[in-house]
């Protein structure tokens, strides 16, 4: 009887119609109990119990199919709540094989939610997807296409691609649309596999169905982002489509809040922005329609504003037009003046785009911007900081960076803290008005965001302190250094300094702590020992500290004073001598050894203030020549240059056919493509130098070789690094100041002090821009009101137009030329060394490696990629030629057809769209017939019923009113 009751209840519920039909009491109870769970722990307990029971029951033999469907849905539920239901994946896969559509759909839904595209089970679904794509029932085809979007990966694309392409011509627009989206997805996964199908997207643009046309815009947007120039011919078509959409030529069903197909409009505007960017002619076609859209803009609804915003983006992206700019500025100011935070946010964003074209636009809105800056809304505030970052110049850098640092201190979000810290650093490096200010700012950044900052920043700071102004007088430099030392000694008193900052402090104290004679050596050494005790430091800080101590001792000895070892210093040295880190040990022993040397030797080992000096690296390793000659005389085989090695390696290949076969295999799941330029020569060299492989039994050969090579590659690469690219390897290696100092002593005779000014490019240029800023700063005017003052400091004094963008490019360019100059100068100074140098482009590694390598190395690192491109380039072309039938044959006429089809004026495409209109009118009339029977609009009785059911099931809705969205949706 009890059983009967539940059955009756189920029946009652299933008759509720739109309610929750078709699920068992058990499942409803589960969902209900989850809904009522008081804590996460309770929820977890319930779900774990559920998973256990499902695991048992799903494995039972002969589970009825409908029951199985529910189990799968329950698994989806468990997985959605963050639990592992992997034991059921295979059952979901099986369910996709089912013939019944509801079950199949459930199966597909479950697998798309369960499996990632690299899951092993995917291979079991491919066949089903292939079969379903051929199905007569378009709903099954749709389900399969939806699943394909999620599940098909790069390797399996070829398995379904032909069928999906065929479906582009399906009679149902829903299928065509999904096929377009699937191809788009394939393109995202692997552009090469569908690159020959690009013309299909162009064709779909003229589809009768606006939905298909709208969907086609997604892949086209991606394609155009990749390669703008191939699609310039479509500008006119896009413009005319946009025009017609805006003129309400699309079916009414596409209207959204009285706007005609706004989502399509936005997508089109995005595409036009790309096409018109920097292209005067293309932009010319766009002006008209944009002007119309501004004029007719609907700013009372959200969606209207979204379209207006997109128009502004488009205006700021295409070739500037004064009229449109004015309209955009006006729209932006409307956004900024709005009460809605959303619109203010969009306004700030739009302003950030517009000032790229004309920086003066910001001035008009200064007060609005300041309001946003002080808004309690964090998102808005951050957006405003982004805007300020974009409009920073040397006149307002101090105000902006101060504000940023204050905000940085106030937040906890590490991700954003890192970002804003790096922005502060960037702005400070670019626009700093004085070195003093720069150091203070950097100190603040390090203190509050220390370990989040890039290590390069620390190196830059150290270099700046070491070099000072570069060409300026020594007096200012030493003043700068002693002020830095002062500030660091003060900061050391604070608890919990980040390790990176401690490194900087130790280095500066070691280098300049005793330079001005204000502090005694013992005092500084004492402080340095304190550093390692007071702060929990890692080995790097300790290394910096002991090296600093060593330098101070060396300077003392060189100056003829006797060094008194403090007890705490002695114990520090003892501690490090027994350290697990060999690096620390070595430094400790070196210090002890140094203390025993006489004055002359110490002066040579550790010259005073030598941190800025260059030393040369002999990349040719010419000092080994004697050794090489001797070895050859003793019978060693001579070194064969890479270029001459090719022939030999091919001979070698023929000896091991297995190797080739393995590499030619098509289904390679693990692509171990090492960086090509270096690995190819290395491998061939290995096969020459490692004949051991020949001794191995044939069947195992490939495997053995692979692992053998892998291990060899590293050693060989190391050995021949001089040949393959010493530059690349250098910047990966962490450098400490100690060792280079040593090598500098050997080369300090050749590296002239005179090169200093020229060598350190960054410093020189930076100080130049700083000089400019000094002058312009004086022009700032004082205004009474605090806000106006802030506004003035941010926006005012625009007289000096040192904009960021030009400044930065200028700097880079200058850096490069100066760089070239520099190698020239060094060569002139030391001709005998330049003879030995092979690659003039490789700069001699800076003594301290204070971030300097970044600019020079960026050029060499580009080269391997170019080579790579060169390697890939020719192979691509044959790949696309693989399908001559599909690419060149029928495609060409298609393209022609496309061109003739493409609307040249609005009239011809008006016909296509109008026909679409008629078509959908038919459609909507048939729809209207079916709607009344199935659709149940919002109606109070309904919701009452639903409420009653809810109570019957025992769920109390969390919202007060179960009719939740009614008020919102009207």
């Amino acid at each position, binding site marked *: 009887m009890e059983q009967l009751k539940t059955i009756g209840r189920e029946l009652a519920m299933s008759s509720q119609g739109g309610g929750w039909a078709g699920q068992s009491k058990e499942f409803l109870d589960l969902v209900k109990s989850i809904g009522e769970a008081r804590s996460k722990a309770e929820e977890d307990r319930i779900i774990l119990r559920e998973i256990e029971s499902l695991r048992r029951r799903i494995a039972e033999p002969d589970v009825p199919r409908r029951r199985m469907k529910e189990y799968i849905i329950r698994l989806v539920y468990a997985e959605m709540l963050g639990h592992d239901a992997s034991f059921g994946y295979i059952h979901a896969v099986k369910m996709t094989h089912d013939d019944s559509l509801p079950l199949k759909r459930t199966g597909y839904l479950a697998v798309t939610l369960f499996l990632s595209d690299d899951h092993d089970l995917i291979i079991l679904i491919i066949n089903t997807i292939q079969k379903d794509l051929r199905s007569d029932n378009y709903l099954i085809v749709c389900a399969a296409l939806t699943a394909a979007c999620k599940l098909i990966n790069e390797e399996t694309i070829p398995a379904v691609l032909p069928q999906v392409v065929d479906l582009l011509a399906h009679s149902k627009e829903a299928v065509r649309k999904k096929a377009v989206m699937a191809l788009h997805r394939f393109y995202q996964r692997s552009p090469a596999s569908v690159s020959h199908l690009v013309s299909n997207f162009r064709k779909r643009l003229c589809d009768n169905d606006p939905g298909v046309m709208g969907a086609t815009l997604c892949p086209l947007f991606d394609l155009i982002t990749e390669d703008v120039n191939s699609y310039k011919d479509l500008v006119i078509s896009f413009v005319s489509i946009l025009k017609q959409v805006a003129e309400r030529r699309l079916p009414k069903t596409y209207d959204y*809040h009285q706007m005609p197909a706004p989502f399509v409009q936005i997508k089109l505007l995005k595409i036009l922005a790309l096409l018109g960017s920097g292209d005067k002619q293309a932009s010319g076609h766009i002006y008209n329609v944009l002007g119309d859209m501004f004029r007719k803009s609907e700013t009372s609804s959200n969606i209207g504003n979204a379209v207006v915003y997109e128009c502004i983006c488009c205006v700021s992206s295409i070739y500037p037009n004064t009229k449109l700019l004015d309209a955009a500025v006006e729209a932006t100011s409307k956004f900024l003046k709005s009460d809605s935070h959303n619109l203010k946010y969009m306004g700030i964003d739009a302003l950030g785009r517009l000032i790229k074209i004309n920086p003066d636009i910001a001035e008009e809105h200064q007060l609005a911007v300041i309001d946003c800056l002080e808004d309690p809304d964090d*998102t808005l505030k951050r957006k405003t900081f982004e805007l300020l970052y974009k409009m920073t110049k040397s006149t307002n850098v101090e105000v902006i960076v101060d504000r940023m640092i204050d905000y940085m201190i106030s937040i906890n979000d590490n991700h954003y803290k890192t970002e804003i810290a790096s922005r502060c650093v960037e702005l400070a490096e670019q626009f700093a008005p004085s070195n003093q200010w720069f150091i203070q700012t950097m100190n603040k950044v390090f203190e509050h965001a220390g370990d989040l900052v890039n290590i390069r920043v620390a190196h830059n700071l150290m270099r700046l302190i070491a070099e000072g102004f570069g060409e300026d007088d020594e007096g200012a430099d030493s003043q700068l250094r002693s002020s830095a030392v002062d500030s660091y000694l003060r900061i050391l008193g604070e608890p919990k300094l980040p390790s990176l900052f401690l490194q900087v402090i130790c280095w500066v104290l070691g280098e300049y702590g005793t330079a001005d004679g204000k502090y005694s050596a013992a005092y500084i050494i004492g402080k340095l020992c304190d550093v390692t005790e007071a702060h929990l430091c890692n080995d790097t800080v300790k290394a910096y500290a002991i090296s600093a101590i060593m330098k101070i001792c060396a300077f003392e000895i060189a100056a003829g004073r006797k060094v008194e070892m403090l007890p705490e210093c002695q114990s520090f040295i003892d501690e490090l001598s027994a350290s697990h880190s060999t690096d620390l040990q070595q430094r400790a022993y070196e210090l002890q050894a140094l203390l025993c040397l006489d004055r002359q030797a110490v002066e040579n080992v550790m010259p005073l203030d030598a941190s800025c000096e260059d030393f040369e690296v002999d990349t040719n390793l010419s000092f080994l020549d004697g050794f090489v000659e001797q070895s050859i005389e003793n019978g060693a085989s001579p070194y064969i240059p890479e270029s001459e090695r090719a022939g030999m390696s091919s001979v070698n290949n023929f000896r091991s056919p297995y190797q080739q076969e393995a590499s030619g295999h098509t289904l390679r799941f693990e692509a171990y493509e090492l960086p090509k330029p270096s690995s190819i020569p290395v491998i061939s060299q290995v096969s020459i130098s490692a004949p051991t492989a020949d001794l191995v039994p044939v069947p195992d050969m490939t495997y053995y070789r692979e692992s053998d090579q892998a291990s060899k590659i590293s050693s060989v690469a190391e050995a021949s690094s001089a040949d393959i690219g010493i530059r690349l390897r250098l910047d990966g290696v962490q450098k400490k100041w100690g060792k280079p100092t040593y090598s500098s002593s050997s080369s300090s005779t050749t590296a002239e002090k005179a090169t200093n000014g020229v060598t350190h490019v960054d410093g020189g240029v930076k100080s130049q821009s700083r000089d400019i800023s000094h002058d312009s700063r004086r022009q700032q005017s004082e205004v009474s009101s605090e806000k106006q003052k802030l506004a003035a400091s941010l926006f005012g004094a625009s007289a000096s137009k040192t904009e960021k963008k030009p400044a930065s490019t200028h700097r880079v360019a200058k850096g490069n030329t100066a760089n070239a100059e520099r190698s020239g100068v060094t060569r002139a100074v030391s001709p005998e060394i330049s003879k030995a140098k092979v690659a003039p482009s490789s700069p001699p590694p800076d003594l301290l490696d204070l971030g300097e390598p970044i600019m020079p190395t960026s050029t060499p690192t580009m080269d391997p990629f170019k080579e790579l491109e060169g390697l890939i380039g020719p192979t691509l072309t044959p790949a696309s030629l693989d399908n001559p039938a599909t690419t060149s044959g029928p495609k060409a006429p298609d393209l022609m057809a496309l061109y003739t089809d493409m609307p040249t004026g609005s009239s011809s495409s008006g016909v296509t769209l109008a026909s679409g209109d008629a078509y959908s009118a038919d459609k909507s009339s048939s729809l209207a017939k079916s709607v009344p029977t199935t659709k149940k609009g919002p109606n109070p009785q309904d919701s009452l019923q*639903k409420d009653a059911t809810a109570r019957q099931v025992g769920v109390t809705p969390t919202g007060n009113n*179960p009719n*939740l969205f009614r008020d919102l949706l009207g």
Partner: protein
Amino acid sequence: MALLLDRCNDSYALLLLNCRQGKVRLTKWYSTYSQKERTKAIRELSGVILSRGPELCNFVDWRGRKVVYKRYASIYFCMCIDVDDNELEVVQIIHHFVEILNIYFGSVCELDLIFNFHKVYYILDEILIAGELQESSKRAVSRLIDAQDSLVEMAKEEASLIRSMIAQVTK
């Protein structure tokens, strides 16, 4: 409750969250994440979103991406998007989705979404594919009704099955 939708690598992700307890009602991920990453993301996001006041804007920065959220009664609909997406548009995509839900369920309420989460997934699959808006017409509803029809047929079958069972039992 909340609905989370994550759009990264050119795709949205979606999350439904309960505003009271921060309970997740529905998630849809368009890129691959491990279960652990998902849990962490949901925890972080619900913390950020639930703590925001009603007057503030509907966007939050989150790990270098943006999350657009909108509250409907007790449910937050959240969508994670790329930095260069149009936020206002995404708010409207969410609204579009809610309107379609409303048409489908007939004045939709939280319970509809809880008990019919699989249907919500179906609807979502019709509106967004791989995170791109694929259908901006509510005519998508017609297709949904088509699909639903077959489901209803099945429910009818089930009901008749039960009826015959009852008939057998009561005999």
